[in-house]
């Protein structure tokens, strides 16, 4: 009986088997790359806002405290977004005619809130609480990045769970003294490990990695 398959079939079989494996690996790799790209994570992606609010100017140059606008950061899960009224405390006095600020004035005048585009977001099944992080010595810039350098605000970190766990597993690498939490120019000292471990003890910081800490 003649051979059913030609010799070349061997090659085809080999190529397709190894090819399939390679393809799968490649696919997996691609998914990973896409998932970590700023296309998906929005990291370093400065998002357009109705008013081009500059943290660089307000925080970096004028030295406003984070809590002046994000007033509930120490008491609530939400850091809080400033009402138009907060903008107008200053801008009813300075830059009163600036065209850039017209949406703010309009909002105040017409009692229509400003719709800001959210920069930092976690999925709905994640319950993040700002106040407890702040109380335990996690600085604003630890997660939100060099805010004093951002003209238009971007997301500094992916906010993926593995990123959260980097700190939840080893808080000593990130903690700072409570007095420095709102310092936007804070640089970690050389002895961060030592300081972190001391602060962990002092602030009774736990390594909370069980699921219902964030998911429920």
């Amino acid at each position: 009986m003649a051979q059913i398959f030609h010799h070349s079939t061997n090659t085809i079989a080999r190529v397709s088997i190894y090819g399939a494996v390679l393809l799968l690996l490649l696919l997996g790799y691609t998914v990973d790359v896409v998932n970590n790209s700023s296309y998906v994570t929005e990291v370093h992606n400065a998002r357009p806002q109705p008013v081009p609010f500059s943290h660089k100017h307000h925080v970096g140059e004028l030295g406003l405290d984070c809590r002046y606008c994000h007033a509930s950061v120490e008491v609530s899960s939400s850091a809080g977004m400033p009402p138009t009224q907060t903008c107008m405390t200053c801008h009813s006095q300075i830059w009163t005619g600036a065209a850039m600020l017209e949406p703010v004035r309009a909002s105040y005048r017409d009692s229509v809130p400003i719709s800001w585009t959210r920069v930092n977001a976690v999925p709905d099944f994640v319950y993040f609480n700002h106040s407890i992080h702040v109380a335990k010595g996690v600085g604003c810039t630890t997660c939100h990045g060099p805010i004093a350098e951002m003209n238009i605000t971007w997301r500094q970190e992916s906010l993926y769970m593995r990123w959260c766990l980097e700190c939840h597993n080893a808080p000593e690498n990130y903690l700072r003294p409570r007095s420095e939490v709102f310092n936007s120019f804070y640089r970690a000292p050389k002895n961060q490990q030592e300081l972190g471990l001391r602060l962990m003890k002092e602030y009774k910081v736990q390594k909370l990695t069980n699921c219902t800490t964030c998911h429920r």
Partner: protein
Amino acid sequence: MATENKNGGRPDVDIATLRHSAREGNTPRFWRGLDELAGTPEFRDHAENEFPHGANDPNATLDRRELLKVMAASAAFAGLTGCTKLPTQTIVPYVREPEQIIPGKPLFYATAVTLGGVATGVLVESHMSRPTKVEGNPDHPGSLGASDSFAQASILGLYDPDRSRAEVHDGRIGSWPEFQTELTAALAAAKITGGSGLRLLTQTITSASLAAQIRKFLKAFPSAKWHQYESVGRDNVREGARIAFGEYVNAVYRLNRVEVVLTLDSDFLTSGPGSVRYAREFAAKRRVDGAESIMNRLYAVECTPTNTGAMADHRLRMRASEIESFARALAREIGVSAAAGPGSSSSAPAEWIAAVARDLKQHAGASLIVAGDQQPPVVHALAHAINQKLGNFDKTVYFTQPIEESPIHQWESMGELAADIRAGKVTTILILGGNPAYDAPVDLGLRELLPKVKFSARLGMHEDETSVLCHWHIPQAHSLESWGDARAYDGTITVMQPLIAPLYEGKSEHDFLAALNGQAEKPSHDIVREFWLAQKTGIPRFDAFWEKTLRDGVMAGTAFPAKQVSLKLGIGEQPPAARPQGLEIVFRPDPTIWDGRFANNGWLQELPKPLTKLTWDNVAMLSPKMAQRLGLKSEDAIELKYEGRTIVAPAWVMPGHADESVTVFLGYGRTRAGNVGSSAGFDAGWIRPYATPWIGAGLEIRKTHQKWALAATQTHNSMEGRDLVRVATLDEYHKNPKFAQADVVKNPLSLYPEVKYEGYSWGMAVDLNACTGCGSCVVACQAENNIAVVGKKEVMIGREMHWIRIDRYFEGDLDDPKTYHEPVVCMHCEDAPCEVVCPVMATVHSPEGLNEMIYNRCVGTRYCSNNCPYKVRRFNFRLYSDWDTPSLFGMRNPNVSVRSRGVMEKCSYCVQRINAVKIEAEKQDRSVRDGEIVTACQQSCPSEAIVFGNINDPNSRVSKMKAKNLNYSLLEELNTRPRTTYQARLRNPNPEIEKAAAV
């Protein structure tokens, strides 16, 4: 809605065979229903298979090729789920931030929820001005921090998507100004005759400010009439007081001083004014600790099984119409003169009465007789007389002026109204709330009469049976949307404040009356406030007083003082009328739907009724003996003929029901309740004539050959007759204080390593001695944890989603069993069988001992639920959560995920509450205090049966509960080491009666 019996119908339970096997001792000691006793295939099905009708759609078939395709596709797509990109969201801050509102922090406002006009004080949780949860108000005397299931479910009533959203004028959309124009014209026409053709129909009103508005209106129209009507009213209570004292008075009980209670067909622990408080006071007198402790004793004489009867140490079942004879016999025994009734010996054994009387007399001044709302006035009068004879007045019961603003005989008021319409005397009728076209006595013919009135307007939450018969329908504001005030059972006033602006521009009763009084522009806040300003002229700083009243939820010092009453002589001396012969029919409000007002509330529809465990239906309830005589089985559709009217109803064989008596429940058979409530059940009101609102005789039953499939959860999640409820009498407990722990395994071996808990270790204790089975916790849990409603069909196949269920067990005699309730939540087992079988680690143990369920990991294998011996896990077979109806979005608790299809869920010990309290404590650098974390079920429980806390702290309440020798775990032999444990139930029988029964 009779259907052919397919798989939903209950297979045959032959009562004669059951009796036989019970005699032979072949039946379990505790049983959940006749199905279990008989071991029917249907029960086996529920016991052996977790989901008896299969996990999949029974119609769906899958061949091998399909399966492989689906599997391949699932595998391929599994990796892609990580690729979802969060959508762009916006943040919309305030323009001017309101005071006190902090995003992420709920606020609590004090207000009240009313039923039949009587207020229960509540605190309503508000997230950014969005009410999400009702909790009891600890400062309110009628709540003491707890609440009933109706109050818990009121939040769904607010967000009910079927609420009416617009004024309707003769079937077309109208408007409020348009209505006002027409109203003004109608009123102007009525003015000429002084309003002689004008009728105002309201429900029971305890609001002084509203009554003042009504009186103002009546002053302007002196010939107009104000009628009040509730189909489940308290006329008999009021009339009873009038017979006894010559005036309407309000009886207030002090259960905390009572050692012996006798109820005459009364369910005072779970329904009626003050029941929430009474349940707590009653349970407090039953807490037992140590060998010397004593308990109160409860005797219940009743026809229809109730929660109160289930709590009783002695329950005597008796036809409702015979209870009068019983009351007379007891009165004579106590020493109150009362004429004997026909057949006065009744079915109560004389020695029973004598023993009860002796017990009561021994506890003179610390005893109490409570007559049921449905019992005739003379029974109430006799109960007063007996209480007085026993010296209970001012000790265990005191009287106050009525809490109703205008206490009248409502049933007669409705009769008068119907007669006036029939006689053509009524030209304008204004109906505020209620639903008379549905629930007025059927032979008054209100449905035919209403359209005859020239101008009729109705203020209602739904465009219901009454609204469609009126010219105008005005959408009513929910009580959480309006200003008002109401009195509690003891007269205490709560000023009700709105939690949210009316969602559909509804008008409150105050707004409506203001329009009648020509003050349509006046906000109801001003009306209520100005009224109280005028009342409280003696108060120096009214503003501060007003703020405090609103803040506290009670107006200080407004509880009515005790009033001196003098009992009339010879109350029972008039011989009773001859009792009509024939089969008895008893009408009762439905335990969860009440008079039908909650028909469109899915939470209450799906809340298993405490004694029958039925959902989504009402039934005609009869005793096993009677069912045997008539050859009836549960779910047989039967024809009930009474007073010339016939209705088809499903039969339900209820152990413990009186023989030769049928109870039907009101509130069902609504035609225009909404998407949830319409066409559920049958309308018992159709055979409820004016002459016999509660108890009638001469019922005829005809068997049809159809079945009426019912959704009862009594056999679901069965733990198969193991020793789950542990019961002993007080005597037995004194002799053997460790009876509940008889089979504790000492030093059980485990394959799992011992875990040491440092810091917190959460646990729960449930006191079966306190639980009345009311179901408040079930609804509270549903509201707190965003639990979905699944509907009748899904309940029938065992897919209800409640995280907490209340198992009801019967013990003993088929006809007259003892009844026990047992709430079952997740046990949070130390060695949890569910955790080890999950292939994706979606259920794991926390360092504080919680058995965590992580929805976003769950892939829906259901292995965990299969391996759970307690059957507390619930699976989303379909997309049960409503993700589409916008009005429901506002209701959800923002701190709990809304689950989707294909996900397992279960009790989390309210981990969101644990976390919130822990975070606050951490920020203050202290540990969580005992009692700071309160789970939703614990919070709502009227009798404080549930205690939660840190079991690592030996001084916590929960630790102390668990240290008692009554403490036991379910299925201890499995060595799962549950964190939820139970305190065994104790009975305190009268030795005289117990001995007589044993002989």
